[in-house]
């Protein structure tokens, strides 16, 4: 008996396109969160010069009654310089695509460019901190690598050094409250780290997951939890250097920072430009459309003792 089946449907009616694009895997951009934003003014040269006065010594010796004027001190300062670089990328789309495709290609292309811009900014900060900040190797772990895995002892050494360097914490404490299985959260520095470190982080003694904060809504979206005076921001694009440890394993850089430790310097009027050029600009035949972004920026550590890169490997045991 002849049966008509769906196999006889013509190709154009065998599918329906969903009208919503699927979400694109997009990492948390954590590295600019603690950064101060500064601007290099237009027509102001290539470099922003920041100056920090050096503290004067306390005057601990009594002046006495001799009337003799003691020697004074000299005002001194350190200059911190930053030269922005230009970054950008673009996509070029043939006009026939926009003419014939039922998909709004330019719309979602613009959305992807926006994410690309912000991810570039974030990764620039990450790479700057990885290359220029002072680092401390985790050495208290037992995974027989150098650096070892994260331990509370290593984390304590870092936030102790930050406090001793008079770094201010970024986050105020969170008060305790009458909720089961919650506890207050200390004043805290921020740590920015790779999501690969989650198991090791949760194994650190005293780790407090975000859900156990007395007010979890006070946490950031990218926040994973706290270890004593450090609150951890986690991202899949956290700093990780493959083949970098003594045993050839990936080294993870966790940047633990206080307030005002680093900045990003933007070229005024050039911090983020979206550039759309219709096909008329592509040549005599107006064949291609382009859209892209460019920006000028540079990250800079302002006070080197207020940010420490805590390097670790994974506990593979």
């Amino acid at each position: 008996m002849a049966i008509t089946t769906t196999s006889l449907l013509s190709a154009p009616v065998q599918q329906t396109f969903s009208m919503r694009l699927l979400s694109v895997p997009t990492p948390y951009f954590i590295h600019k969160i603690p950064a101060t934003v500064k601007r290099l003014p237009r027509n102001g040269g290539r470099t922003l010069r920041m100056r920090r006065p050096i503290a004067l010594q306390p005057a601990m010796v009594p002046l006495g009654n001799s009337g003799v004027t003691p020697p004074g001190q000299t005002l001194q300062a350190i200059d911190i310089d930053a030269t922005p670089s230009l970054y950008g990328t673009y996509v070029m789309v043939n006009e026939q695509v926009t003419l014939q495709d039922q998909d709004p290609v330019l719309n979602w292309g613009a959305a992807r460019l926006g994410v690309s811009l912000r991810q570039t900014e974030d990764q620039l900060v990450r790479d700057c901190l990885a290359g220029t900040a002072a680092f401390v190797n985790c050495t208290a772990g037992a995974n027989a690598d150098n650096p070892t895995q994260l331990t509370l002892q290593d984390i304590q050494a870092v936030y102790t050094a930050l406090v001793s360097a008079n770094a201010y914490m970024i986050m105020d404490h969170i008060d305790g409250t009458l909720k089961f299985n919650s506890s207050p959260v200390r004043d805290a520095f921020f740590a920015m780290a790779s999501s690969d470190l989650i198991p090791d982080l949760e194994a650190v003694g005293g780790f407090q997951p975000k859900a156990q904060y007395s007010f979890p809504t006070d946490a950031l979206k990218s926040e994973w939890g706290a270890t004593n005076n450090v609150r951890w921001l986690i991202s899949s694009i956290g700093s990780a250097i493959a083949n970098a440890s003594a045993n050839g394993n990936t080294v993870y850089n966790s940047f633990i920072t206080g307030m005002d430790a680093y900045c990003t310097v933007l070229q005024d009027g050039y911090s983020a430009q979206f550039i759309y050029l219709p096909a008329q600009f592509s040549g005599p035949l107006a064949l291609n459309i382009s859209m892209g972004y460019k920006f000028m920026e540079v990250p800079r550590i302002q006070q080197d003792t207020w940010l420490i890169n805590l390097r670790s490997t994974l506990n593979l045991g």
Partner: protein
Amino acid sequence: MATGLTIIQNGSFTSSGNTKFLSFPMGLDWLWVYNQTVQYAAGAGTGAEFYWDTTMTPGRGTVYTKTAATNALAVTQLPAGLGFTYVNQTGNPFGISNALTSISNATPPQVLVGSTAALTNGMVVRIYNTVGGLQLGGVDFTITVTDGTHFALAYMRAIVAAGGPGTYRIVNWQSPFYPRNRTITKISNAVQAIITLSVTHSLTVGQKVRLVIPKQTALAYGMTQLNGMEATIVATGQADVDGVTNTITINVDTTGFGVFAWPLTADFPVDYAQVVPMGENSAVALNPPIPVQAQIPVDYFGNQLPGTQAGYLADATTDVAQQGIYLAGGAGNPGGANADFVTWMAGVSFSVNPNS
């Protein structure tokens, strides 16, 4: 290439005999290199023209060598490591893992390997998984090639010999942001201490640095009085006790301090002594002490790092990452022998090849 455009560039350089880097921010699909000195000179047996495109194995390429009888060009493939290496300074900077046999107790330490053909002076390597010498693991070192089977950790102090095998990887590029944190190999006890660094440092007179000298053992790193101290660089390139000139001289008197010492293999795992760039002491930068030295951030070969400032702004943090191609140096290689005049032509083409 991604652009879908056609771009052609050309240029020239006089070879120093070392590996030459050509920067191509636009990317690159193909490259011709012409060694004019070889082309026009009498004689034979030397590479005169070279070609690379994106289909080729990293480190290799095509060479056209002058033949003896007719000066005709004979084509062949460049040996591994002696051709073209395209780099886009993002992602993992480490090359493939290579075996090493041992590390000597010489000054500087000599690393015994199967062959040094793919290595050149000024390269940076990282050592791993050695038997003995564990304190070197995970640290970057600038190298010089000693002979066909040895390279030296050029700026390193002597260690207790590592008799057993291990591995190393070439570090194809450093952190993209200048000025960089550097690992200390030696510090002198002197009125103005001389600090030797494991990798070519590019720092300049007038820059301020902070010294990080962790206490690892009773002996290492010894000079803990310097830990956390700020210092101004008053000279660069002064020879240390071993004659190494990858040094900075600071305005700190270390004559009464403990003796700087590296940890031993038994002290593993260890932390490292570092020089951390802070900023600029403009008073020193504007009035540098005698002898006056050029305040230009330079690489191993003396070339200024791209995008960096000179003089009292030489401390400015900037991104020095590049996209481009390395031409292996030396006679018969695309980078040429010392004083060879080399021209090149490079292009980005329409993509009609899936390998592009």
